[in-house]
């Protein structure tokens, strides 16, 4: 019988071992892809098998389940090509490190985090392109992140707490450290962006849970202000973009800033926050995968305005992308809506300005997401283009994403540990300072 510690080690070890063993089939991309997907499925089974032995919080459990699933769909949605091999292996490695960070104790977790941030910095440096100058900022941000992770492991308080908070702000994007997140989503190759979009914020939120409780009031005030600025800035930037990956990066950054505000204002990470984060990340991952489908057919970084009318010749793609867009806009019955409403209901709005900014950011998502999807799916069909609907693996990956987002939206609340939240019948007496 395996004890709890061994079980937790096993969770991290399976993907890392899988990554190392994948080198055996390195020269055969098709086999490498199948192997990588199999490893993520084994990881998922291991997670399910060790469910009872884990002592992590309800929100941590959610991420531990979601990570192998996200890795699986990210790999599944990729075309078979030798250029993507490094990304597949790195996906497994990141999965192992991510599970290690979420399940292990402080020091091991910090070491794994340093390794993860270091690897990302290296990959970004490797992918650096002088025609994409902002990627330097991303490399710099992750360099700082690595340094902060090291500091938080070895330094004494309060330096370690500050370093930990900065690392959290890089992982779970917060102004002015959001460039790392944006660069990762736009510059990393293959399956990595659609996976790290969940991995990094999940680790950030996990680490934030420990730091935020002891943060002084002045820090909280700063964080809430930055979060509101970030929510607005992310929306504005998303509205200004024409490149799909940038729209998705800034859009998700804006929504995650709302999460930052709620966590900082309440000084606690609620299960609703985890559901919201999971849903935002998975939806963004799905939309990145959908964009990968378009890139596979019409070239890298193609302008979405140049390809219109996909709804009619690619009905499967259109339906799945429409559902993902609905979820990304925060419409029911998807997880983003559930998490968002849960977050709002669990938060105390001490000022109407915060509520106003959050509602504006939520509203803006409807604008830029719908515009993006409308450009792709609707409008006049181009007769000079060849259309091909989703292949089996692409269909499966997008369908799984849609099902996960629906599940996050409609799953019983008790599953995420939300049932213990008390009814806020006395809310008015306790928290609303802007009323008399």
């Amino acid at each position, binding site marked *: 019988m395996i004890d709890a510690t061994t079980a937790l080690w096993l969770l991290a070890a399976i993907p890392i071992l899988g990554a190392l063993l994948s080198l055996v089939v390195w020269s055969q991309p098709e086999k490498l892809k199948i192997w990588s997907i199999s490893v993520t499925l084994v990881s998922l089974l291991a997670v399910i098998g060790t469910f009872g032995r884990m002592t992590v919080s309800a929100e941590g459990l959610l991420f531990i389940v979601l990570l192998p699933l996200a890795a699986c769909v990210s790999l599944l949605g990729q075309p078979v090509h030798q250029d993507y091999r490094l990304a597949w292996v790195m996906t497994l490695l990141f999965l192992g490190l991510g599970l290690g960070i979420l399940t292990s104790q402080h020091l091991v977790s910090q070491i794994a985090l340093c390794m993860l941030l270091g690897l990302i910095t290296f990959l970004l440096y490797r992918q650096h392109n002088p025609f994409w*100058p902002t990627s330097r900022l991303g490399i710099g941000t992750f360099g700082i992140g690595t340094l902060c992770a090291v500091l938080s492991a070895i330094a004494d308080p309060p330096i370690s707490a500050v370093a930990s908070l900065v690392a959290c702000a890089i992982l779970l994007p917060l102004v002015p450290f959001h460039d790392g997140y944006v660069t990762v989503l736009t510059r990393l190759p293959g399956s990595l962006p659609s996976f790290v979009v969940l991995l990094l914020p999940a680790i950030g939120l996990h680490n934030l849970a420990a730091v935020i409780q002891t943060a002084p009031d002045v820090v909280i005030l700063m964080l809430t202000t930055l979060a509101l600025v970030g929510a607005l800035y992310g929306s504005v930037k998303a509205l200004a973009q024409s490149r799909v990956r940038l729209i998705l990066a800034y859009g998700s950054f804006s929504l995650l800033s709302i999460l930052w505000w709620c966590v900082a204002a309440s000084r606690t990470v609620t299960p609703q926050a985890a559901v919201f984060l999971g849903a935002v990340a998975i939806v963004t991952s799905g939309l990145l995968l959908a964009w990968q489908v378009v890139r596979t057919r019409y070239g890298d970084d193609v302008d979405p305005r140049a390809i219109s009318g996909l709804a009619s010749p690619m009905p499967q793609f259109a339906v799945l992308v429409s559902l993902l867009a609905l979820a990304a806009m925060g419409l029911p019955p998807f997880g983003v809506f559930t998490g968002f409403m849960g977050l709002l209901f669990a938060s105390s709005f001490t000022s109407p300005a915060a509520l106003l900014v959050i*509602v504006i950011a939520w509203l803006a998502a409807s604008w830029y997401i719908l515009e993006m999807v409308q450009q792709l799916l609707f409008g006049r069909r181009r007769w000079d283009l060849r259309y091909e609907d989703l292949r089996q693996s692409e269909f499966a990956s997008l369908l799984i994403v849609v099902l996960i987002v629906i599940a996050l939206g409609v799953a019983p609340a008790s599953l995420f540990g939300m049932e213990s*939240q008390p009814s806020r019948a006395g809310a008015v007496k306790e928290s609303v300072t802007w009323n008399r």
Partner: protein
Amino acid sequence: MSLALAVPLLLLLATCLVVVGPDRSLYERSKLAAYPIGAAFVGAIAILFIVVARGPITIRFYDPASIAALAFPIGFYIDRLSAVMMTLISGVSTVIYCYSMGYMYQDLHCRRYLALICFTEFILLCMVSSANLMMLFLFWQVLSYLLYLLAHNHAHAATLRGAFKTFTLLRVADAAFLAGIVLAHQLYGTLEFQDLFARSAGMPITLSLWPGMEISAATAITSLMFIGAMGKSAQFPLYIWLPGSLFAPTPVHALLHAGIINAGGFLINRLAPLFGLSSTTLHVAFVVGTLTAVLGATMMLAQNDIKKTLGFSTIGQMGYMIMECGLGAFSLAVFHLIAHGLFKATVFLNCGNVIHKARLEPGSPHADPRAEEQEFSRLTWFTGFTTTLLIPLLILLVTHGVLRIPLLESQGTVIFLFFIWVTSSQAILTLTRLRAVASWKVSAAMLLTLLFVVFIYLFAVESFTAFLYPNPDEVASYFQAAALPNWLFDGIVIMATVLTVLSWSYLYMRAHGQAMWVPGWVEGLRLRLYVLFMNRLYMDELYHALGRAVMRVVHRIDRRGARLSE
């Protein structure tokens, strides 16, 4: 209980019948789907009877104590208001669906269209029977997106633009509604209707937005929710989505104008006890409604396209409905929305025939003005003019003398009476302008119309109000909350009366061929106003300019951010 669940589920069944299956059997399946829709109508009528006999039906699939933890508190609360709305929606849906089967036959995307129609009706039924504010908001939002999809022909650039405009404007209203819900939950800790009403009435809270600016919690919540209602019910200045959506298939308009657009009126009625706590919101509703009614009706007169004319007519009517809510006459608003819904659905479904006939008429729509002059009938005009002027006297006599209602102290009664008069005048005026018809018939029709309108309104005032709001004190409290200062109220009534009589005189003189002296500047203003209203107050252009300005700011911020990053 199972019947209450079955009614919306029957529409979901109809959706599935249309969606699932091969293309070759689509026509048969779509015919088959009409039966569950019809059955839902019958079920809705049965529910109406049950609710009247046994009281409201409540079904909950959640624990109200932990509503904050559950994003989908699915439940149904069917009282008389919900039952009436369910009957209206399912009845109109049956007709629209049957019409659509023929109308969309051979359309490439017939399956999607019919499925969406059924699904929208399902969402509407769920919305009006929601057990709590959260569920209502949930379906409210889905409706916004369905309106985007129902534009249907997304390959057509103008349709797509209209659909996008519809969705974004409705989302603006949805955002305000969301803020209202969050605020309600924050302040009262519940989204259950009855609990919310009880707590808001028993726990008056004052919010301080900033030093020196204080409003009551009820005003803050209802104002935000009213913006939500303004969006769905196409109130000024959020009305421009409605004319923009006119490229959608005609049955969609019938559904939109008979069902979806009434959502605002329904919301205010559903939250009547909450709205009744805020005189400010009711007064705002009155102003917005009046403005929308006047502008909508005026713009309708200046349009040259039948769909746009009907669209602006709906905007005007919705303004009328919101104005009634703003005056505290909630039941009258429901009565109005039912009557308008049935009327407008019929008109929309028939407008294709009108266009078809007009195309067959060589002279239509241009009539010979000389021929018109010859058809002028003194008898018709005399009857119309005198009945219009006599009605107020008659009403005053009956109410004050016979029923002994103290008119000066009861704004509610005056509101009802005034609406009787205005509606009769409108109907009689319409008949008066039918000059081609033999004049004695028109005169008889006028008298009948007068009687009809008076009796219908008496029914609305007495029976329907008592049906929807059985507690007379509750009705009185709404009128009390909505009461305007006496000088203002009297001023409005007198001004509207004078305007109506003047309009009659003006039209009479014009029809009689007599010139009426009008100052030159007034004539010039009239022309300018005509151009302004024909162009729908340039609101589309204004919104475009606003959108462009926002995007300029957005791009400026983006460029500065990019420069900083470099």
